[in-house]
């Protein structure tokens, strides 16, 4: 401190922000991978993934007697 601080690319502040952004990127990337994984497991389990979509979907209609 006391010295005039030059604003250049390698200023501590930039390094800290780059560090923060890198972690945020990793977390978001991890989230994407996780959602993909969950989707895969749900599809493999054969779970019902369809829902109401403003039109008649025969696959959603419960058969009689069930």
């Amino acid at each position: 401190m006391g010295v005039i601080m030059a604003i250049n690319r390698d200023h501590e502040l930039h390094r800290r922000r780059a560090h923060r952004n890198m972690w945020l990127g990793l977390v978001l990337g991890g989230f994407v991978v996780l959602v993909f994984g969950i989707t895969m497991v749900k599809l493999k389990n054969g779970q019902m993934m369809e829902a109401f979509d403003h039109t008649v979907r025969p696959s959603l209609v419960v058969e009689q007697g069930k």
Partner: protein
Amino acid sequence: MTDATVIERPRDAEFGDFFALLKPRVMSLVVFTAAVGLFSAPVSVHPLLAFASILFIAVGAGASGALNMWWDADIDRVMRRTRNRPVPSGRISPEDARTVGIWLSVLSVVMLGLTANMVAAGLLAFTIFFYAVVYSMWLKRSTPQNIVIGGAAGAFPPMVGWAAATGGVSVESLLMFGLIFLWTPPHFWALAMFMDDDYSRAGVPMLPVTHGKPATRRHIMFYSLILAPVSLALAFTQIGGPLYLAVSLVLNLLFISGAWRLLKRSDAEAEADRYAAEKKYFRLSLLYMLLHFTALLGEAALRWTGFDWASWPQWV
């Protein structure tokens, strides 16, 4: 103040500060109890879905922690224990803490609903609401019973974990709730006995401050006694067994005798040994919770390996 006083400027927030906003130590307890709730359920859950469910429960708990830090920044600033948290130390603004808290709450509830089911998501949403609004905003500053009701927020995670696996609520999950719910008051009151100057400075009405230490000792005894039947009852459900019963019996005996020792002490004796017995009881309370849930996990592991306690009585 001397001229040697250094005025520390708050440094820019780092990623770790945002992580600290989520109260990682509380989160680790939530992860543990939610995991026990999920794995002791008699339903098999795909490992990835189990992992994701526990993660989203933890994120929800973290979000309510961030909301609590936003609301309680003024209290945290005066208490020694919490002074260095990201908001009171100025590294993260209260508004940022609120934003993080709200959005992580929404994200965790939606994701738990998609990963597990709506019952679990609803319970998680209620837990966050209960901790952030009912406890932090309303009860914490207005009644010395704050801990009793606030304890419910900490007691929900195993229920959420159980609901993530089974899609419902049952006797087992209610008893796990009861175990943490009744354990929380003696645990925190023991802490407040030797940290009371912190709480009184911050104006938080804790029992030792408002009703005195002898009354607190009686309350601790009372809760230790009613905690015992609830924790023992879990042994006779489908998630309990002889292993759990043995662990629970020993821990309850220790817990009640510890509370008895506190009850028989005078404040002068406590001052003289700097609250050694209270500190010991506080440490014991941590062990009490940890070992009860470890025993439940142990019973779950035994069931996975196909081991069956033949003719073990299940009352519920």
